[in-house]
């Protein structure tokens, strides 16, 4: 890691640890939601940006995770941490199945197929009112019995660091290389000995289980789980976050999620307009800055800072 990166990580770590004591309860809540979206956006960018599989069914896996945890707690009285684990596993399993079924699809076909998957799931949840509570939602027990959101904050922070850190390790490993090779040219990857089937499904499984993880956190944190979380509007929000950040950069997706969520909340007096704004931001980024706004900006900044830092270091030695 280069010096500017290390400096950034250090500053961010400090900031993250101190954040709850710097802001009021409302902004703490916003930050918690933002970090949860960051897990969704980063895992989507792993699947779409790195592995090249444009899934519009990502929020379906968030629902799978959330509803698995919620239903197990509701009907079987399973303790929530166990239910959350089950939710992640269920999302991974469904991810493997969907990844396997769309093995022979690519581009828009995969996008349509996965979109259909999440819509069928959402419609089922809305319709099976007796089981899921339908559009009105189902209540989910709290995870912590605290007066503040502090425990949730540190939990989601830990989940975010672990899941994004884990994905960054994957991306830097040979798995990440294979993901990109398959994205670039599936036929050539197979000729190069990459087990295409295995790695396509693996990418789906990793991304889906992390989306499921975000869902299992969302349910108890909000206390009520509605099928809206799996809607195409939420999908659009997550895609916008990942793209604004820079679709092929995981930290970019995290930064994109946090800045878009804060922007949306900061502009909440503008009501519906802020949602138009993020749609426009998405269109603008795609149209004029296809590599995203945040990740390239950071690279630019870093390349500006690096020579200066080196010069400063030289000064110091003298």
């Amino acid at each position: 890691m280069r010096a500017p990166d290390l400096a950034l990580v250090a500053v961010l770590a400090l900031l993250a640890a101190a954040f709850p004591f710097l802001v009021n309860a409302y902004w703490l809540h916003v930050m918690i939601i933002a970090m949860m979206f960051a897990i969704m956006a980063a895992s989507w960018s792993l699947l779409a940006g790195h592995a090249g599989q444009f899934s519009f069914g990502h929020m379906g896996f968030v629902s799978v995770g959330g509803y698995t945890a919620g239903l197990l707690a509701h009907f079987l009285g399973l303790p929530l941490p166990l239910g959350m684990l089950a939710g992640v596993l269920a999302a991974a399993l469904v991810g493997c199945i969907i990844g396997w079924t769309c093995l022979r699809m690519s581009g828009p076909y995969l996008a349509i197929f996965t979109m259909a998957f999440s819509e069928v799931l959402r419609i089922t949840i809305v319709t099976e009112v007796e089981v899921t509570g339908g559009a009105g939602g189902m209540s989910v027990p709290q995870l912590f019995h605290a007066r503040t959101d502090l425990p949730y904050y540190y939990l989601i922070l830990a989940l975010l660091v672990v899941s994004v850190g884990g994905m960054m390790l994957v991306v830097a490993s040979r798995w990440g290389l294979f993901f990109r090779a398959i994205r670039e040219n599936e036929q050539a990857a197979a000729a190069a000995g990459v087990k295409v089937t295995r790695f396509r499904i693996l990418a789906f499984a990793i991304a889906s289980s992390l989306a499921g993880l975000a869902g299992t956190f969302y349910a108890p944190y909000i206390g009520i789980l509605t099928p809206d979380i799996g809607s195409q509007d939420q999908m659009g929000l997550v895609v916008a976050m990942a793209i604004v950040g820079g679709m092929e950069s995981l930290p970019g997706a995290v930064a994109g999620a946090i800045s878009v969520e804060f922007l949306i909340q900061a502009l909440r007096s503008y009501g519906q307009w802020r949602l138009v704004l993020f749609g426009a931001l998405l269109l603008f980024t795609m149209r004029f800055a296809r590599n995203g706004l945040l990740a390239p900006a950071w690279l630019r900044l870093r390349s500006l800072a690096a020579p200066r830092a080196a010069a400063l270091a030289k000064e110091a030695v003298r």
Partner: protein
Amino acid sequence: MMNGTPPLIEAIGLAKHFGGIFAVDHLDFEVHAGELVGLIGPNGSGKTTTINLLTGHLRIDGGGVRVRGQPVAGLPASGFAGLGVGRTFQITQLFSRMSVLENMLVPGLARPHAHKTHVTREARRHLEFLGLAALESLAAKNLSGGQQKLLELGRALMLNPALLFLDEPFAGVNPYLRDEIIRFVQTLHEEGRTFVIVDHDLDAIQRLVHRLVVMSRGKKIADGPLASVRENQDVIKAYSGT
């Protein structure tokens, strides 16, 4: 059977049809270790399709393939690569947004128990051999057409293949690079690798190969030492289009 070692690769009654037409029409064909075979034939005679069938890139409609005597029915392309059967494509297929070195690392790291530092060293050695060493951090899409062909060859070499199928290595290549590729193939052959080379550049093929196989309309119409195939009337007929 004669000397006890089975052929490196063997097609038995191999068939593939698209719609009603047989692109490969019950082909028998085998390659022994150490050979340098030319596979020629007019456009559309089924050469590329044969390579695709013998490397797992197309599903077989009839007959079978054996690698070192073992039937490999249903093996995916990555499995053939794992058995040391490498290939290049008629239209160069690279990982275009990845660097030259990364292109080389993919097959290297896909091998079981591959070690990153070892594989990287090996990749650099091959890039050196192919004259691409200075370009290793360039994105593959930014290479010239000829350099892309060399990189594709290098990527196939990273499988440490016993057998290499080259699909039209001389197409669209200037005379200088053509001579270089001939030299590369000769060197690699001397190192013990087996080659099947498909091309329309009969001059280059003649300089390289010892054995020539000729296809026409999906069928093998000649197979033997270079000199005897050159005299074959069927071959002349197939090429003159009558």
